[in-house]
């Protein structure tokens, strides 16, 4: 009991002694509240997904039906608790200057968020991934300032690597958002990748002019992104990168004033930074490792690494209603409002098929639905099969079974 308490105390001490970290805690709490607001604005998204009979389970979970055991009322309480805790944390960090209470409420918000977040993969995004990771590090990992800054840098660089894909570099995201020619979109996409690679690395320059240039460039870039693509991700990154000037100022101040070092609580070891960054880098590198050399579950690898968020995958699906005495080719329609990013997502297509099974059950003579999905990325020449199933309405058929059976289906 003594060790964990001491560990927690040293974490709190690290936050209390650093005004930049105290402020950053407030920013993290604001971002948490922003997530809550974003979900609330879209119709209380976690609660909406909780009501659906066929959730989009995270790939590494065998089944997420166990989450349905949580009652809708309990989910609603958790949802509002998440929002209120985030607000309270922000107030205590920024206004009341009581970092310990702020830390506590932020921890509550972070813990409460998990059952809301994990019930459906549609709530996931790269930026949510970053906020969740940074909150954890802020709460519980020593050497926070340096580690958080390196994680933010790592996030930018990883995102830039992911965006080296044809889907992003083709510029269609910017071209569609700004109604601009595709070549302009290409240039904007290339510039954004350049800024994401170089900007955060340049924030580590000690010389003020280079640091300031880097920070202003990044902030301007996010401002343009806000105009083109929406507020959530750019605002989040602007707030997170505020840690850099705050820490820059604090470090220069420490160097000038030669602050007293506490021997009761020594400075946190740099080893925390190396270990955590090594884990982060390995996690981001996993999707690039060929599957035959990958010893972990590919779903886990996909979960702990960043996703390409540009739409670009093309897919074709053919589906059939199978009756006692006849077969009909049908078109399964996706629900309105589904984002382009998820248009070809196989798990969502599976969910749509399950919904179609339920709708067709009442038709006389109905037996099952057969369906095949093929997809192709922008740089690929041919379509490849994603799944083929002759009995999608089987009660115990899970998405995992469909994907794992893919190797047995006679391929193209």
């Amino acid at each position, binding site marked *: 009991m003594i060790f964990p308490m001491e560990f927690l105390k040293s974490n709190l001490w690290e936050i209390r002694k650093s005004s930049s970290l105290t402020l950053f805690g407030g920013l993290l709490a604001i971002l948490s509240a922003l997530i809550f607001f974003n979900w609330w604005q879209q119709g209380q998204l976690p609660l909406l997904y909780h009501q659906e009979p066929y959730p989009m389970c995270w790939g590494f979970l065998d089944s997420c039906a166990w989450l349905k055991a949580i009652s809708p009322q309990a989910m609603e309480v958790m949802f509002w608790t998440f929002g209120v805790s985030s607000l309270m944390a922000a107030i205590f960090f920024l206004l009341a200057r009581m970092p310990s209470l702020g830390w506590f409420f932020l921890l509550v918000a972070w813990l409460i968020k998990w059952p809301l977040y994990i019930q459906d993969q549609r709530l996931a995004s790269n930026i949510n991934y970053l906020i969740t990771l940074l909150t954890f590090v802020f709460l519980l990992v020593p050497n926070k300032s340096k580690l958080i800054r390196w994680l933010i840098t790592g996030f930018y660089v990883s995102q830039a690597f992911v965006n080296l894909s044809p889907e992003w570099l083709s510029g*269609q995201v910017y071209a569609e958002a700004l109604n601009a020619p595709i*070549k302009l979109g290409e240039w904007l996409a*290339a510039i954004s990748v350049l800024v994401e690679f*170089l900007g955060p690395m340049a924030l580590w320059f000690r010389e003020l002019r280079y640091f300031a240039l880097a920070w202003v460039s990044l902030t301007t870039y996010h401002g343009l992104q806000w105009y083109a693509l929406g507020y959530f991700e750019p605002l989040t990154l602007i707030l997170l990168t505020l840690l850099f000037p705050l820490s820059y100022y604090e470090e220069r101040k420490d160097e000038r004033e030669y602050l007293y070092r506490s021997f009761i609580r020594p400075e946190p070891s740099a080893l925390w930074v190396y270990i955590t960054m090594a884990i982060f880098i390995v996690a981001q590198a996993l999707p690039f490792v060929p599957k035959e050399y990958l010893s972990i579950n590919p779903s886990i690898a996909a979960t702990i690494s960043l996703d390409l968020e540009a739409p670009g995958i093309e897919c074709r699906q053919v589906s059939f209603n199978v009756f006692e*005495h006849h077969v009909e080719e049908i078109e399964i329609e996706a629900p309105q409002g589904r984002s382009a990013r998820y248009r070809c997502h196989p798990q969502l297509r599976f969910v749509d098929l399950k919904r179609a099974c339920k709708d067709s059950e009442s038709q006389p003579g109905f037996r099952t639905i057969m369906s095949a999905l093929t997809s192709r990325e922008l740089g690929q*020449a041919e379509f490849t099969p994603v799944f083929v199933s002759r009995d999608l309405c*089987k009660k115990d058929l899970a998405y995992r079974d469909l994907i794992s059976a893919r190797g047995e289906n006679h391929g193209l």
Partner: protein
Amino acid sequence: MDYERQRRERWWSAFFIVYAAGVAYLLLQSNPHLYSNKELKKELLGSQKETLKPIPLAEKGNLTADQKLHQTFWWRESAGRSGAEIGGIPHDKEYVVEVKTDLPVAPHSMPVSSDDVGFYFAEKGPWITAISNEGQIIWRYRFLGEDTQAHPPLITDAFVFATASNGTLIRLDKKTGELHWWMKVGERLLSPSALVNNKLVLIGKPLKAEEEKLAKETTKRRGQKATPQTDRVIVVDAALGSVLDYSEPISFKGEAYLSALESSEQIFVTNDNRLHAFDLNKGGGVAWSQTLPDPIVGPAMIYEGRLFLSLISGKIQAWDPAKKGGKFEWEVDIGKAPAGPPVFVPTFDRLAIATTDGHLHVVDVKKAEGLWNIHLDNRGSSQEVLAARISGRFIEEHGLKWENKGWTLWAPCSNGRACIYNPDKGQLISRISLVPGAHPFDRLSFKDGALYALLRQPAAKGSDSGEERLILARLLDPKTLKRKKDEAAQTPPPAAKSSISTAHQPES
């Protein structure tokens, strides 16, 4: 300390410069078209191929590359469209209706394929249906789209190949209707398919994304600008379903009909007043094309290596397709518009042609002259004429010559009847009463000694629906019918069984 810091700063700057150079290199590698006018997306899309392979939906074992497929057909669905019964089994000359059944659905157009199991046809709209010999539905398949029109299916020993106007090609199990594979072949399929040495031949417009690529290849091959938005002959591997080739582009007006000469793997397409020959051995390239003075009625009929055409002006033409450019041989004017392509009467070396005025004309192939014509008094819409053999015991009775092996002409006549004629001079041999009041047959099929007839019954006056009915009649020769009735009278009736089989069994 300051010196250390400066040293670290210099190292960091050096690293940053190298890092920036590496980033620029990566970026230019990932988008090599950044500094050019070319668009990355367009370049990548240009390298994409359309899916020209089927999506398999059946067990592994059903896809076999080496399985030889034999088309099952009755008369007109043979590759050569000769209208003469292949196999030439002798039949009786008298038949009596044993049972007639109102069909629950009706074919949209002929031909209706049939075999021992039943009848296979396309309904009006997107449906393909299999009906048993007892007139009950075995299975059905529906293509996607309300406006889609299914084409008459092609059947083999074990499979049914079906196409639709929306460019879909499917393969089904003939007995159960189980879907084996599905594929998009083109954006518009014009005609039902033909099967030549395991190759399915279709006519349609290729998928849009394939069009530009094909246009470029054609320009390279022929040195002239390929016409966009055109039709082609599409060749598909019938066992595996993959598209093998596309022909040169052609513009078709309205309906186009396929015939094939299997021995030389040549395909002949008639469309309006144009006759095209394609060589499957040369990747479906156009061997030759001819423009005729008048539109051609139906497909070209091929027999013993020669092509016979019916022109709407009443001319019957013979062509030799083996000669370069196709050699016109002779023409006979029968004076009236034909209702369909000629029927070849084996051993007689004669052609029989039904005309739209209800006559049956016969032309001698060797002498290239018209011989005789008779009035069929056919009050129905179908003018389908067939050549089939009758049993040897009738040869002497009706003054037929033994060397002609009992070949006769079967044609719809008068009120709901089928008439059998001697091709020599048109003497009536027999008149088979089908269903009084019904239009003479759309289809005749012989199976296990029984004669099946598909007939259209006009709506009775005062009837509720006012719609034409389709009837399936089964006829037996009088002796067999009597024997069956005697047996039925002696044996107690069996317990009632459902005759509808299950079309699909999902996996357990």
